[in-house]
């Protein structure tokens, strides 16, 4: 089964770029990515630019509107994801627990729909 691990945190929490903690934090992500790749679980993964760069689009009655900012003004924002191929939820959860952001943010685990033929 494929699981999308969505990484949520407040952008102001946790190690910030340019600080002393940053290199070790990024090393943690590198190690995790290597591990899921070596374990044969990795389908894809990406990190997102900060929400300051987000735009939100709607189409209503044929009218397109594009506005500045993320869809929801919540305390925690989507910062990146891993798409993993795991045996079950327990395995997906055990990988989610290794994601560095899990210690101060949260990881949402969503199964991917398999469309019937």
């Amino acid at each position, binding site marked *: 089964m494929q699981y999308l691990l969505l990484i949520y945190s407040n952008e102001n929490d946790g190690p910030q770029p340019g600080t002393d903690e940053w290199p070790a934090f990024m090393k943690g992500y590198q190690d995790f990515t290597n591990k899921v790749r070596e374990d044969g679980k990795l389908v894809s993964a990406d990190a997102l630019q900060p929400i300051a760069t987000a735009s939100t689009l709607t189409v209503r009655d044929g009218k397109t509107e594009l506005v500045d900012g993320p869809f929801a003004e919540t305390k925690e924002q989507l910062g990146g994801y891993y798409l993993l191929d795991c*045996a079950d939820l327990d395995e997906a959860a055990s990988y989610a627990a290794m994601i560095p952001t899990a210690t101060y943010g949260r990881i949402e*685990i969503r199964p991917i729909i398999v469309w019937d*033929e």
Partner: protein
Amino acid sequence: MSVMPPRPVERVIQDIVREEWGRILASLTKSFGDMQLAEDCLQDAMIIAMEHWQKVIPDVPAAWLITTARRKAIDRLRRDQNFVAKSKEIAYITQLEQEEAMQHKDAPTISDERLQMIFTCCHPALDEKARIALTLRTLGGLTTDEIAAAFLDKPKTMAQRLVRAKNKIKVAGIPYQVPERDMLPERLGSVLKVIYLIFNEGYSARAGASLMRISLSNEAIRLARIMTKLMPEIPEISGLLSLMLITDARRYARVDASGNYVPLEHQDRGKWDKLQIEEGIDLIKKTLPRGAVGPYQLQAAISGIHAESKSWVETDWSQIAALYRILNSVQPSPIVEMNFAVALSYADSVTAGLAKLDAIGKTGVLDNYQPFFAARADMYSRAGMNARAALDFDRAINLSQNDLERVFLMTKARKVAGQ
């Protein structure tokens, strides 16, 4: 409702539902990988059994039901629109059937998958109410209506809750397995909590006038007995079973002839179920020396001391205080501290107990907890501080959600008010 006793075939089926439902359903779920399909097919098989068993009841009824349910599963999967997508499942079930037919002719052995099943039903990825309902439905064999009635829920709401939970298990890939070693303590904690919640729901009804729903308590005890057999190496399971046995043994003393709530202090100890207390105490005495002492074992030991005492006054309060002190270090909570204070008020002095309770009261964490105010009111009245006692009794009465308990508290409140 019929006044006639059930006919033999119906009685056989009823007995199986009672005794074997969990085992059959767990076994079917394991082979289908789908709890809802397993349940639907087992229901189908029971309807067919009603008819076929009129002539002759099979030697191993459970095995007959499993074989029939598997055939029904193949039928259902074949009828499914996504026949091609399901062909893998059909092939697997067919293979299972053939293997068993080769080995045992008409009596396949029923593998015991109940342990895997209970860990699935109590998975932390499910909402707590769903965990309780699923456990009662799948392992206890209670009907949706029975579960709804026990939790004062609408049957429709309960049915939806169950369907949602079974769907999440399937779609989110919650596995049918006993968790690996590193996850086991946390997962086992969730299983034991579900069993204890079922017990407490039966033991002290939260709302309404019925103080006990005994069948739920019995169901929890039955589940714990199954767990002790399946995981004999875990002392906390025996601890929980012992705690529930001893607590449940006092059930007839909790209500007096006119239906009023009677707290432990004033219970007629002659009404306690001696045999059940003996079983519970015996179990905890054998369990404690095995090491890895946890909260359920400590609570069982505390209940055991109460159960062995001739009266409230003659209770070994210093030992109870000592056990609460350990319990508070293993599993710190303001409620445990409150109980420690009560034990201290008898083992040491009312002043010592009151000092502890006042300290807890200042934090405000138990401001909505009825037993805290009932306990403090009681200590104030023992210290002769009746005005303060009256205030606390009032708060306890306002917080109580149980009619019988409220009546009891009002009687005590009138006493301190000198009425």
